């Protein structure tokens, strides 16, 4: 009964983790999702610590706990706490943004940690019991656990369009109860067993339906009050007209007379705005659809900053819109007289809605993959990317659409006099504007431009800037300079004198934007860019695909200056995702230390201690595994664009392949332990080295083939990564205490490395994550090689 229980709770808990990320994406912000889920995963490690302490007090637990009655109890507890955890979370008045000003929020946060850790605790308990009591079959236990988890990673994505998140949580919470639904099938009367089991399943389904119906308010995921959709819904006559759930996000269609999205609109425009409909993703990112039945959209769009690109080209015939939320780019193209712009939207739901609304074909694809496959060139390429609705909310996100590699690709798809345009919100101090300018500068250098600054123009109004990039040195027509003047826009950068001072219409206390770009330009001209980037208060260095354009700009060395620059308020600094990562890491270190030290300190006998070599081995294997997972998730996000798809593919793939590796490890002798560990390190090292080959290859494939290609790429390393832990549990841990302790150590290392990977990725790039993983596996291999003689495992 134990292995089916491990399989089902592994499946249910991973599905629950996926559903939690979906829930938090709607009800909170990515910071909090990251913070709470990371800490909740300590539940796995806590189960090892708990069993370690139990081992001190009642060594006989190893005989009693694997018995069916106890397994049943644990499975029932898992189901119960999963339901309580989810419902409790939905009712908890946790408000992340009020953490610095409301002490009660710290208590709510603690409650969220505890609530969410409980299901993982019971999953860890059952798995740990299996490893400790089935010492000669650790490969099978590993395989069962990993296969269950792999299915758990995959299935929610398939079922989300059919069932709501709350319904799915109920389904997954009750699923493991199937194991307890009847007597074991190997009883003498199998028919009776099947009958009782069938009745049990019917009862479970009935309980599930009753729960879903009666506890509907508790299961409903409510969007955060801070999210843009929640704000609009507070206005009269605002109503949600359609909604659906997908792995890539919850989609809501909202209609309201109060929807008025017109970023970059000139102050001199006094006409009306068209009727708008918003399509929200996870209640915040939105796509605005304009009513084009009147000529309003065109007239308003001609008065926005992005229209500058079309004015500069003169008579544009073709335009490529890389849609990434927003929605003004399409009306900009229509207003410029381009009846059928080429639109590429990675999100399939948004793409379908966009196509249906405007009657223009919309390609659903990764924009870079699309451009790799297409040879078409354009007069205007517009990247629509306005960022999150709250500064700092997207600090943990990284965009591959704004790297030097991406901009080089866009430039190569421009007609000789074509224009590349990016518009975003202005922020003080200037951050993403500077990084974009530098990215464009370096991309132009890569294209052989002798004086890249002459190919660039930046203009702004009071809350938006637009960066214009051309393959040719830009000559500003009179029509263009008049457009800027007439609409009361300001020049931030132009190589051609315009006669209009910077900071003329839209005045900061000083011309901050103009000064910063001028200094950066001067730094490039004089070869002092390194000094500029290190002296500047924010991280504005241009980035390649290895460290995709991060949403964060904070520098630890300049944090004091930033604190003062933002009004000396702790709240402002808390908006930085990096701070949250650091706080979570600090918390994780403390929790990990407690979980690992308590059972060690409580041990009275020699058998209740863990040799340091074994401890480090399990820490290294746990950390290495998670770092590889995160490396692949981030790499494949560049292919699939949607992190959720990358997450599902990588998790399902790696877990399934490593499960297979675990099963094969069953046939390996003790001496084999170092070989697959070193093998994993060697194969993993090849992944970043050969990226130049496989990344463009994956991009060139259609979506199903991309998934197959990604799985093929992770098959061998995944399988090899399945050996070390399964073999280690069989040979490197000798006693029941050591096995549960190894489980705790592995769990702690997994959480710590997951949090560290977020920081590594933001600060040093993706390759650094893989270097960390390879180092872990080499270290584990060395420890396995020099570890003690083969000894028979005993419980």
């Amino acid at each position, binding site marked *: 009964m134990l292995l089916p229980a491990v399989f089902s709770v592994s499946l249910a808990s991973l599905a629950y983790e996926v559903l939690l990320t979906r829930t938090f994406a709607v009800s909170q912000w990515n910071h909090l999702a990251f913070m709470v889920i990371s800490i909740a995963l300590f539940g796995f490690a806590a189960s090892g610590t708990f069993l370690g302490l139990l081992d001190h007090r009642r060594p006989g637990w190893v005989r009693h706990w694997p018995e069916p009655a106890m397994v049943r109890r644990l499975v029932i507890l898992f189901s119960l706490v999963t339901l309580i955890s989810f419902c409790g979370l939905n009712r908890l*008045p946790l*408000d992340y*943004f*009020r953490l610095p*000003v409301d002490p009660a929020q710290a208590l709510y946060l603690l409650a969220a940690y505890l609530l969410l850790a409980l299901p993982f605790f019971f999953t860890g308990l059952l798995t740990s019991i299996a490893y400790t009591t089935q010492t000669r079959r650790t490969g099978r236990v590993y395989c069962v656990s990993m296969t269950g988890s792999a299915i758990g990673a995959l299935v929610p994505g398939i079922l989300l369009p059919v069932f709501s998140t709350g319904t799915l949580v109920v389904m997954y919470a009750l699923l493991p109860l199937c194991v307890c639904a009847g007597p074991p099938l190997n009883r003498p009367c199998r028919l009776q067993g099947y009958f009782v089991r069938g009745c049990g399943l019917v009862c479970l389904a009935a309980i599930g339906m009753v729960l879903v119906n009666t506890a509907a308010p508790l299961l409903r995921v409510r969007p*955060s*009050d*801070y999210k843009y959709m929640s*704000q609009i819904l*507070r*206005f*009269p006559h605002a109503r949600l007209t359609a909604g659906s759930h997908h792995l890539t996000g919850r989609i809501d269609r909202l209609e309201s*007379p*109060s929807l*008025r*999205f*017109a*970023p*970059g*609109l000139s*102050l*001199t*425009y*006094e*006409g*009306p*705005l068209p009727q708008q409909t918003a399509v929200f993703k996870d209640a915040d990112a939105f796509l605005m659809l304009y009513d084009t039945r009147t000529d309003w959209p065109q007239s308003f769009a001609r008065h926005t900053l992005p229209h500058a690109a079309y004015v500069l080209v003169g008579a544009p015939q073709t335009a490529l819109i890389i849609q990434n939320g927003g929605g003004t780019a399409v009306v900009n193209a229509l207003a410029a007289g381009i009846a059928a712009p080429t639109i590429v939207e990675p999100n399939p739901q948004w793409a379908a809605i966009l196509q249906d609304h405007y009657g223009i074909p919309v390609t659903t694809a990764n924009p870079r993959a699309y451009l790799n496959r297409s040879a078409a060139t354009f007069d205007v390429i517009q990247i629509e990317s306005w960022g999150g*609705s*709250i*500064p*700092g909310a997207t600090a943990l996100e990284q965009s591959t659409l704004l790297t030097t590699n991406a901009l080089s690709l866009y430039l190569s798809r421009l007609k000789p006099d074509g224009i590349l345009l990016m518009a975003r919100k202005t922020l*003080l101090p200037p951050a993403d504007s500077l990084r974009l300018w530098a990215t464009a500068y370096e991309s132009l250098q890569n294209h052989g431009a002798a004086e890249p600054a002459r190919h660039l123009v930046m203009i702004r*109004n*009071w*809350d938006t800037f637009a960066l214009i990039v051309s393959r040719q040195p830009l000559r500003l027509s009179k029509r263009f300079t008049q457009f800027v003047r007439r609409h*009361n826009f300001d020049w931030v950068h132009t190589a051609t004198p315009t006669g209009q001072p910077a900071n*003329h*219409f*839209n*005045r*900061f*206390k000083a011309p901050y934007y103009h000064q910063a770009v001028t200094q950066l330009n001067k730094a490039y001209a004089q070869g002092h860019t390194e000094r500029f980037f290190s002296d500047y208060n924010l991280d504005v260095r241009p980035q390649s695909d290895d460290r995709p354009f991060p949403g964060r700009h904070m520098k630890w060395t300049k944090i004091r200056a930033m604190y003062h620059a*933002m*009004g000396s*308020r702790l*709240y*402002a600094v808390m*908006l930085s995702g990096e701070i949250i990562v650091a706080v979570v890491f600090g918390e994780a270190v403390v929790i990990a230390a407690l979980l690992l030290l308590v059972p060690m300190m409580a041990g009275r006998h020699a058998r209740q201690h863990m040799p340091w070599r074994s401890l480090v081995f399990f820490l290294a294997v746990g950390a290495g595994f998670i770092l590889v997972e995160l490396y692949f998730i981030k790499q494949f996000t560049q292919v699939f664009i949607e992190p959720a798809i990358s997450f599902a593919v990588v998790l399902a793939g790696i877990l399934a392949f490593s499960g297979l590796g675990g099963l094969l490890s069953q046939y390996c002798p003790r001496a084999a332990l170092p070989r697959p560990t070193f093998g994993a390190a060697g194969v993993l090292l090849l992944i970043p080295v050969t990226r130049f080959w496989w990344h463009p290859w994956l991009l060139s494939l259609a979506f199903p083939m991309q998934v197959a290609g990604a799985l093929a790429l992770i098959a061998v390393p995944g399988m090899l990564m399945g050996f070390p832990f399964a073999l280690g549990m069989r040979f490197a841990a000798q006693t029941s205490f050591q096995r549960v302790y190894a489980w705790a150590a592995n769990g702690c290392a997994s959480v710590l490395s997951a949090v560290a990977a977020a920081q590594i990725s933001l600060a040093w790039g993706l390759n650094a994550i893989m270097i960390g993983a390879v180092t872990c596996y080499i270290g584990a291999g060395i420890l396995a090689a020099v570890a003690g003689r083969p000894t028979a495992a005993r419980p």
Partner: protein
Amino acid sequence: MQLFRAYITITLVLCTLPWQATAMNPAEARRTMVARDIRGRGIHDLKVLAAMTSVPRHRFVPQAMQRRAYGDHPLPIGDGQTISQPYIVALMTTKLNLTGDEKVLEIGTGSGYQAAVLAHIVKTVYTIEIRANLHRKATRTLQTLKYTNIHTRHADGYFGWPQAGPFDCIMITAAVDHIPPPLKSQLKEGGRMILPQGNPFSYQNLVLVTKKSGDYFVEQIAGVLFVPMTGEALK
């Protein structure tokens, strides 16, 4: 037991102190607020200071919140809305550079407190609220307090109040990603408009727009932070 009783008594007394301080003597609480949170933070416009000292802020917040009315923070007023913190009210009013003869349009009446402060300084205040419930409550409060130079209206402020315009000054109390075009046409030549920029729950700037010869000049007043006030706090 005696120790326990003493503890309970002290706790009860301490809990009731702030309430007594504001409820018993709101005028004094106001003077303290102006000295500490307005003048103390660099606002020296005498008209604004006098108005802030006169307007009974506690009358504009729900009964349950009155004891916190004179703290420098926003407070929930229902319908998911807040009354701005006193410093922001003072700052926005000061930046309009009012002389006393103006006709001012306020978009977003909310509690009516900002309109009351303006009414102490200028000739006439026109204020629009989109939420019917808030409009009713604010109108009642302003009438009770005998503000005869304030005109309230239940409508979508985006379109302004064309029949009453043009205005010398316009104050928008909600953050927007563009300045509503209809409001600009209701602004007098040389008129001023002030509004917050950015998400209402995060880092914000104030933006002062001046209309001169058909052109618009925007001055950005950086570094205003609004304390987050939503979620449970708004229920």
